[in-house]
């Protein structure tokens, strides 16, 4: 126990925060006290986890008194100082309200733009919070881990799903001391009968009690015990969402009976909301002990908790030792050479895919808020003529500058908080819209909602925005140049020169930020449009897909083949159907990958067999999808169970397995086991983008499902139609009913929809970033327009003079535009540099487009140049039309 707690350190973030706030004389002693107490007393007494909680509580409780002490000591020990602060604060708020009353239009403009900016940020943050930062409700999430495997020698990247064998699970459970509650599960579909209803549930088959690993009790009832899961007791746990949607939120559901593939199971528990793992709606026992599986059957995944007193690093160190030990013990299994086991938190493992897009969008929307801030700052600077008079008067009657800055900042922060409130209301609407959209994306963990964390973010964003846009005008306006201001009332054009300079600098900032967003948006749109135009290698239009899973309890191999043969024949007879086939997977749905051997195989790589997608299909599969036959023959009706096994492979598999040609007539074997049967290659089909539209065509080996129907009981039925695809659905349903009324159709969608779904995250990212970029462009244009207008106003007399001295309208206009475009050009240069630097962060989101894509950048620059020109032309035209007599008389 003692040496286990030795290495426990105080939580780092809290420590840093405390250092920042501890501004008292003896802050060093304070930090020392806290560390000493933590390591010497609290950790041994309460354990590392609760000790860290204690530390955080101490820090949180310390900050307010320390802050007060710091303020008091700076101001001397007067007791009524704080009352003064409060008083002056309310005074400032009153002033701000008065200011709003005086100029309601300006306040409205500021509040609306800021509210849009803060609202957009809040929505995006709620997405990041719900999907990336806190997607799961599990307590102590940073200690809930899953273990991934990586085979660098095979080029197989870190994988956490359907990747681990039962033997490897047992090695980890029994051989890694720093992990506890190690559980494993497999996933598949089960037919569920409930009263009159049948449905198909995505089901997990477990070893061990998942609730122990998750660290939470079930919503109702209990979890399964390890003994039950090995013995295969007929007990079941259902998800909270099906409890609500399918079982009418029955509070007495526990103890009732559910039919699972025709067998009665007793429901013993209901999961908590949001705790479905990979979308599982039903948990049942695995029913056998891990030993019955061969060591290479890698289709499981695991969950575990880091034991008290151990760190994440210690777990990984132990896993590394285990990996090396396994490599030595199984020298006959070459895949173990150099393999790695790696623990990641469950959250991290689940958010890897969407994290980059989420952060790019959050960054983009923060940029929008920055642009809004500089725009508002610019507006406030423009209004400051009257403000400076007020400030000068207050200075004249004795107000200190710090007091004035505080008043002006209170004003801007109050404005920002009001905007934040409106923004939160906008976000409230927006977030539920986003949540609705995201509800349709399968396997997305977490949910999007306005929770406390999001609200805190919105308030922080508002206050920061208020300070950001307020600070420049506040410092500038509080200068209180009494004499100049009170005397001349801004008559001279030079008096506004400084402000104009600041406004121009703000325009540069806006332009730079907007350009970065435009380039980012342009790159994503470009990528997305390339992705949708890419040739998938088959014809996805007008093809319906639906899945059927036949229960093993009622169907053996021949019965499965018979069921699907009959189904295909009868569906083909439906009017409007052009072709019917079935396949275990179809592009872009890809999950079955196996090692493939050929006869006389040269040793590949490190003595390894290459990997191919292995797809069970029927003869009609290629016609239904429109995949062209390039050579040899398709499966035929003479290939039946018992006749010589045949295979069709794609061109990419030819390159991989038969680089010398002569594929037809050669034999391939699926799986590493020498006992697996050989298949004769009889045909070669064209490549499809079978592994996702953004990936290259993967080598694929097709076997005839009719010959090996015992290999898979779940198939997609693919129907090519000459009519609207969905219109044939009732007829297909009644065919299935006539063969076996208990079999439901599920995962019903057209193949085009499946393809569109596979690129949905990119579509969302491209769409959202474009909206932000458009918003940024409009804001930047408004900023340019405002600055040129202000310049024209400030220089009216000078312009009048120039015109009176003979300057032509064209000359005046050109001068004004030229001057307006200088800050735009500076900002554009900075922005392009920033875009080039930042586009590297987006590399993972791009497809066939590089971050430095010249066409995108040229188009964006041209668009921006045009907008900048228009935005400065409009006010410049006004200047050139000035009547010199009027302009000069303007005193």
């Amino acid at each position, binding site marked *: 126990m003692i040496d286990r707690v030795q290495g426990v350190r105080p939580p780092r973030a809290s420590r840093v925060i405390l250092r920042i706030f501890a501004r008292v004389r*003896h802050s060093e002693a*304070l930090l020392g006290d806290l560390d000493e107490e933590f390591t010497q007393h609290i950790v041994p007494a309460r354990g590392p986890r609760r000790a860290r909680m204690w530390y955080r509580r*101490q820090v949180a409780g310390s900050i307010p008194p320390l802050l007060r*002490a710091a303020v008091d000591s700076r101001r001397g020990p007067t*007791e009524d100082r704080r009352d003064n602060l409060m008083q002056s604060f309310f005074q400032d708020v009153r002033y701000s309200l008065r200011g709003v009353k005086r100029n309601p239009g300006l306040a409205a403009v500021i509040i609306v733009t800021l509210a849009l900016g803060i609202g957009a940020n809040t929505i995006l943050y709620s997405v990041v919070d719900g999907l990336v930062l806190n997607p799961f409700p599990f307590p102590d999430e940073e200690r809930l881990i899953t273990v991934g495997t990586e085979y660098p020698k095979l080029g197989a990247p870190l994988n956490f799903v359907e990747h681990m064998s039962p033997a490897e699970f047992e090695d980890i459970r029994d051989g890694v001391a720093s992990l506890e509650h190690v559980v494993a599960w497999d996933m598949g579909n089960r037919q569920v009968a409930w009263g009159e209803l049948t449905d198909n549930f995505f089901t997990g088959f477990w070893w061990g009690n998942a609730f122990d690993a998750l660290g939470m009790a079930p919503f109702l009832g209990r979890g399964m015990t390890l003994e039950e899961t090995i013995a295969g007791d007929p007990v079941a746990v259902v998800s909270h969402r099906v409890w609500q949607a399918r079982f009418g939120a029955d509070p007495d559901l526990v103890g009732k009976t559910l039919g699972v593939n025709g067998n009665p199971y007793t429901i013993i528990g209901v999961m908590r909301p949001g705790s479905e793992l990979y979308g599982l709606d039903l948990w049942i026992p695995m029913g056998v002990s891990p030993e019955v599986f061969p060591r290479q059957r890698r289709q499981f995944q695991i969950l575990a908790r880091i034991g008290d007193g151990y760190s994440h690093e210690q777990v990984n160190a132990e896993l590394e030792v285990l990996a090396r030990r396994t490599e030595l013990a199984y020298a006959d299994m070459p895949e173990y050479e150099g393999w790695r086991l790696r623990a990641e938190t469950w959250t991290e493992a689940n958010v890897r895919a969407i994290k980059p897009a989420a952060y790019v969008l959050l960054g983009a929307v923060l940029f929008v808020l920055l642009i809004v801030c500089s725009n508002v700052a610019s507006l406030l600077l423009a209004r400051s003529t009257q403000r400076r008079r007020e400030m000068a008067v207050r200075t004249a009657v004795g107000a200190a500058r710090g007091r004035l800055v505080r008043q002006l900042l209170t004003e801007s922060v109050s404005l920002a908080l009001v905007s934040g409130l409106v923004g939160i209301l906008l976000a409230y609407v927006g977030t539920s819209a986003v949540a609705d959209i995201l509800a349709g994306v399968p396997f997305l963990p977490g949910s999007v909602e306005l929770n406390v964390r999001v609200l805190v973010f919105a308030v922080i964003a508002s206050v920061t925005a208020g300070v950001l846009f307020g600070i420049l005008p506040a410092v500038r306006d509080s200068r209180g140049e009494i004499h100049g201001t009170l005397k001349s009332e801004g008559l001279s054009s030079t008096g506004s020169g400084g402000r104009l300079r600041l406004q121009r600098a703000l325009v540069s900032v806006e332009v730079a930020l907007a350009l970065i967003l435009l380039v980012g948006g342009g790159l994503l749109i470009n990528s997305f449009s390339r992705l949708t135009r890419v040739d998938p290698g088959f014809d996805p239009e007008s093809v319906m897909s639906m899945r059927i899973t036949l229960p093993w309890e009622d169907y053996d191999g021949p019965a499965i083949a018979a069921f699907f043969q009959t189904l295909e024949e009868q569906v083909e007879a439906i009017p409007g159907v052009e072709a019917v086939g079935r396949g275990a997977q179809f592009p872009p749905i890809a999950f079955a990958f196996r090692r493939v051997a050929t006869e006389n195989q040269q040793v590949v790589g490190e003595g390894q067999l290459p990997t191919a997608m292995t797809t069970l299909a029927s003869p009609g599969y290629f016609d239904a999808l429109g995949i062209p036959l390039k050579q040899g023959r398709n499966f035929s009706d003479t290939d039946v169970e018992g006749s010589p096994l045949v295979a069709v492979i794609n061109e990419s598999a030819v390159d991989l397995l038969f680089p010398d040609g002569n594929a037809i007539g050669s034999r391939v074997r699926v799986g590493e086991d020498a006992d697996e049967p050989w298949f004769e290659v009889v045909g070669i089909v064209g490549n499809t983008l079978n592994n996702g539209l953004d990936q290259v065509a993967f080598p694929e080996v097709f076997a005839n499902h009719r010959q090996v129907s015992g290999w898979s009981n779940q198939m997609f039925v693919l129907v090519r139609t000459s009519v609207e695809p969905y219109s044939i659905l009732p007829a297909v349903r009644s065919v299935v009913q006539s063969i076996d009324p208990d079999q439901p159709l599920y995962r019903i969608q057209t193949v085009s929809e499946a393809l569109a779904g596979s690129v949905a995250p990119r579509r969302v990212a491209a769409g959202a970033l474009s909206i932000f970029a458009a918003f940024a462009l409009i804001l930047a244009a408004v900023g340019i327009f405002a600055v040129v207008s202000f310049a024209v106003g400030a220089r009216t007399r000078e312009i009048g003079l120039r015109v009176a001295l003979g300057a032509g309208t064209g000359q005046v206009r050109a001068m004004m535009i030229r001057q307006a475009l200088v800050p735009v050009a500076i900002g554009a240069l900075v922005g392009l540099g920033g875009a080039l630097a930042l586009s590297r962060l987006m590399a993972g989101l791009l497809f066939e487009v590089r971050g430095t894509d010249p066409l995108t950048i040229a188009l964006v620059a041209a668009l921006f140049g045009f907008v900048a020109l228009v935005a400065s032309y409009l006010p410049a035209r006004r200047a050139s039309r000035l009547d010199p007599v009027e302009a000069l008389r303007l005193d």
Partner: protein
Amino acid sequence: MTKRKFLGEFEQVTLLAVVHLNGEGYGMAIRRSIEARTNREVSIGAVYATLERLETKGYVSSRAGESIPERGGRARRYFEISPNGREALIRSRDMLDSMWDGVDLEAASDAGQEVA
């Protein structure tokens, strides 16, 4: 500015803890002592903020102690009450005593209940 005459409640509590520890009280020990006697959770920051204020007013004095590795090399700081501090504590107690004199809250609340 007016000089503060009476101690705040937490100031009194802290000063009394310093007295209890009899010159051996450093921040965390003082915090522990307050927690143990008052049965409420106290943050170390509140203790130090108060000690600093008391030191500024001259009610306590402090000296640096040993520095040990568990503290990351940061020395403990021991606090001791000063004569002024004693005086202030006594004044505060006397003031409270004189205010409490003749007050019997338990009796008063019982009486209130009977009326209700």
